């Protein structure tokens, strides 16, 4: 279960007033990896570098154990990508778009396309430009599922999508993962998706991976602790994320070490509660 489907090392991209990286990023088979970050933190740029729509300055990108630059076409045949690139072909119908795309994927499954188009209630004769934002997202999502891929790179696949379709997308992603040897990278602002789908989470901040979280570590290490008092010395403790006074409480990402510290300081812990993923992410993303 330790096959790496994607390995990124030291990836950088400089712009005049913005820079991405250096980014190290790994995706193991069987995992759904969440990518979160504020708007403009570099999620889409990162995906676009992976798809070679944007060129990196430095760094190594390997998919399925092969270098991206020397095996580009073969690698892309095994990736499903959602990245909002279809808008420029707004004058084409969804059917015409499909006819432009399917040709390049040897494993494109036409029956699956028909099935999914029906499942998501897509009118194939409609011009892409005439579709609503949510429908466009659904169309892109369907396209990304049609080839038999090993990896999905999904840049906010459910943004603007209705609730029923969101559930269907979630179901389809879980079904995609059934084999256990595939993986998904999911950039999203939707905490429900992070909670229900992702196994680990990368936090992107100002173009850098600021945190890598295993979801269960959050459960085991992050806590809100209500205490009898908050001493000045606690400000120096590295595992303190936040403190507030009414009533005195501490948020920590390492409950064990904080407990020891409090014991030494002879401070009573009144109550301890784990943090939800939403709370943790708010602290990390700011």
């Amino acid at each position, binding site marked *: 279960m330790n096959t790496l489907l994607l390995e990124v090392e030291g990836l950088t991209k400089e712009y005049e007033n913005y820079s991405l990286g250096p980014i190290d990023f790994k995706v193991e088979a*069987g*995992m*759904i990896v969440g990518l979160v970050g504020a708007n403009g933190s570099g999620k889409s740029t990162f995906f676009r570098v992976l798809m070679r729509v944007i060129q990196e300055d430095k760094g190594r990108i390997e998919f399925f154990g092969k270098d991206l630059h020397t095996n580009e076409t073969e690698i892309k045949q095994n990736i499903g990508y959602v990245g909002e690139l279809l808008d420029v072909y707004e004058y084409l119908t969804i059917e015409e778009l499909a006819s432009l795309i399917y040709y390049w994927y040897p494993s494109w499954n036409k029956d699956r396309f028909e099935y999914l188009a029906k499942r998501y209630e897509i009118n194939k004769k409609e011009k892409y430009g005439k579709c609503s934002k949510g429908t466009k997202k659904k169309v892109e999502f369907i396209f990304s599922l049609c080839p038999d891929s090993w990896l999905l790179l999904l840049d906010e696949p459910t943004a603007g999508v209705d609730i029923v379709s969101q559930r269907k997308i*979630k179901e389809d992603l*879980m079904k995609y*993962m*059934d084999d256990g040897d595939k993986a998904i990278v999911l950039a999203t602002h939707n905490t429900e998706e992070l*909670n*229900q*789908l*992702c*196994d*680990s989470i990368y936090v992107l901040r100002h173009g850098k991976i600021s945190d890598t979280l*295993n*979801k*269960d570590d959050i*459960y*085991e290490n992050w806590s809100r602790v209500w205490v009898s008092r908050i001493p000045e010395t606690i400000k120096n403790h590295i595992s303190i994320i936040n403190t507030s006074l009414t009533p005195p409480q501490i948020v920590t990402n390492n*409950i064990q070490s904080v407990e020891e510290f409090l014991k030494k300081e002879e401070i009573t812990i009144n109550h*301890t*509660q*784990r943090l939800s*993923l939403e709370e943790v992410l708010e602290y990390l993303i700011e």
Partner: protein
Amino acid sequence: MKLPIHISEESREPIYHQIETQLKTLIVAGQLPPGTPLPSIRTLASELACSVITTRRAYQNLEASGYIKTFQGKGTFVKEIEENAREETKQKVVYNAFEKAVEQGRQVGCTNEDMNRIFVEVLMRNSDNNGG
């Protein structure tokens, strides 16, 4: 196939352990009879908002101790467990629950007598309600 498993907000017990204990309880209590299909690790992880690493670990432990069995491509099912193992687990589950209760009692400052009294009271009321 939704399971009545709940991850505690307060408990410091690792999630995989909580899943393991609760599944064991359900199996031993007969709520999940032998042959019952269990959700996939991905589905369970989704429902409990944890990672598949955790659910896989819980399933692996349960499989190793003989409660469940995974068939490649078919899924995971509850296994037939032996009577004495069932009895043993029952004891353990109840023992753990009491242990927790006593711990909480101590935290709020109950004496042994207090707890004893409460225990008998709860026992009585419970058997009254269940008519037994």
